[in-house]
């Protein structure tokens, strides 16, 4: 492989990440099963975002890879969020 990418995550790291992810999942289910109305969705999405970030950074190695990948990913996700935002804005604004 190329030199910059010699980082090897240990099994332990992976298991650690996995347990965090599972904890977060259970946490979402727990939170959403209590009625918190509007906060529910926000909380669920927030946790999902945290989980996604962890997957991207550790499982998908963005943290250890060259920075371009990270930059690209962030920009692409930002783009998607803006597009969703603009579209939904049209409906909110009607």
């Amino acid at each position, binding site marked *: 492989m190329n030199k910059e990418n010699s980082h090897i995550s240990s099994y332990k790291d992976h298991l650690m990440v996995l347990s965090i992810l599972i904890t977060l999942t259970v946490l979402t289910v727990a939170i959403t099963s209590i009625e918190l109305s509007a906060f529910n969705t926000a909380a669920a999405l927030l946790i999902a975002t945290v989980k996604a970030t962890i997957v991207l950074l550790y499982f998908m190695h963005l943290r250890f890879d060259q920075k*371009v990948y990270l930059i690209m990913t962030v920009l*692409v996700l930002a*783009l998607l969020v*803006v*597009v969703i935002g*603009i*579209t939904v*804005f*049209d*409906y*909110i*604004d*009607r």
Partner: protein
Amino acid sequence: MENNHLPNYLEYRGKYKGLLGWLTTTDHKRIGLLYMYSMLTFFATGAVLGILMRLELIAPGKQLMEAQTYNALFTLHGLSMIFLFVIPGVAAVFGNFILPIIIGAKDVAFPRVNLLSWYLYIIGAIIVLTSQFMGDGPPDTGWTFYAPYSLKTQTNVVAAVLGAFVLGFSSILTGLNFITTMHRLRAPGMGWMRMPIFAWTLYATGWIQLLATPIVGITLLMIAAERLLGIGFFDPALGGDPILYQHLFWTYSHPAVYIMILPAMGVISEIIPTFSRKPIFGYTALIISSMAIAFVGYFVWGHHMFTSGMSTGSRWIFSFLSFIVALPSAVKVFNWTATLYKGSIRLQTPFWWAMGFIFVFMIGGFSGLVVGSLATDIHVHDTYFVVAHFHYIVFGGTGFAFFAAMHYWWPKIYGRVYNAKIANIGLGIFFTGFNIIYFPMFILGMQGMPRRYYDYLPQFENWNVVSTIGSWIMVTGLIIIITNLLRARKATGKIVDDPWDGPTLEWSIKSPPIVENFEEIPVVTTGPYEFK
């Protein structure tokens, strides 16, 4: 040069001979030519449909065909011109042929994926074309497939939609390939800021292809699912919202117009320095403007929906951004003009094509400002004014650049020059015909003639006649141009490596290029447009 015996890519014999050799090739140059010839075929098909439509419109009432046929014609005309000609267009043909050479590489990053793209392109094209003959008759929705009409019509929409989906896939893979190529395979010494503008425009295009195409892909799949499985997405009877379809469609299709125009602008940015014998004016500004077009162009889609019942705030935003996206184009036009200043201009055919491009592109762009403005678009939306706008800018922009590129790189591709005199005459006729067809459409649109009209009121007749006559002039010009080029492959033309003294890397090698492009990968030490 010692290694003069190295075979060029045309003579080269691989594992397979003849046609099979071409169909299994992974050589970017051959793939470029595969694209070119298949594309010219589809373009000719689409063009013939255009001519037929103009004949039908020469007078009110029925001339040649029934309304159903006419509706199918403009649908297929739009589909083939957009998806089979201008979207792959300059990028697939000249991007493939020239990009690796111009950045000093032996091929693209994924040669086999490149061939796969071409096959997907052909498969998509075949599906779209067979949709004409299978099922319940040719689709009649217009190239925009607006729901719910596209859900209600009995015609064969599903096949057309799936064809477009496959074509989208092809486009994505091309973009992916080019971006990776530019990241990984630039010649030693060629930093990003030494990369020729043409490559930069392909880079910007690649990102749009990657990030916009999937959205139309999924939208078209939803249309197919809705028709086949009755899954309700856009049919109000099933709870859907037709306007959401328009949002999704244009989220792709506006950026798609920049997929069409950016590589075209790249071609012009190559031609102008070569023939003015001086570096392009404002190299950095041109790069920034390309990226800005790609970026801002992603957020203006709603200007196709000003009358759809979108919210007031959205109309405001989309109109505003449409005006902003015009700025980078303005910057480009000014920089091209400035490049001529104190040059030593050689009046050869590609140069004339570039000048023709600038002229019609300006008209197309300015009419874009008229439709981008709210008050005026309310009047001219869905009229012939819009038809004039996009023919000026799509055919005038991308089409002109495509022909400009052919005239510029033909000697590179075949190692021979064409007859310049005939080429210029052809251009003259073509240019005249072009303006006679499309300019009257601006007037018709201002008078209020809606588009996609099989029949019209008598007061619109005069300008329609003019326009139809223009179409005959233009065909004449195009036939001259194309036969002149095709003949130059063998019959005429002396053999040359570099007829224009071009500054960029593709002119430093033999014409036609050898299989590996470079005998030795060059080391780049300066910016792209340095003249001794």
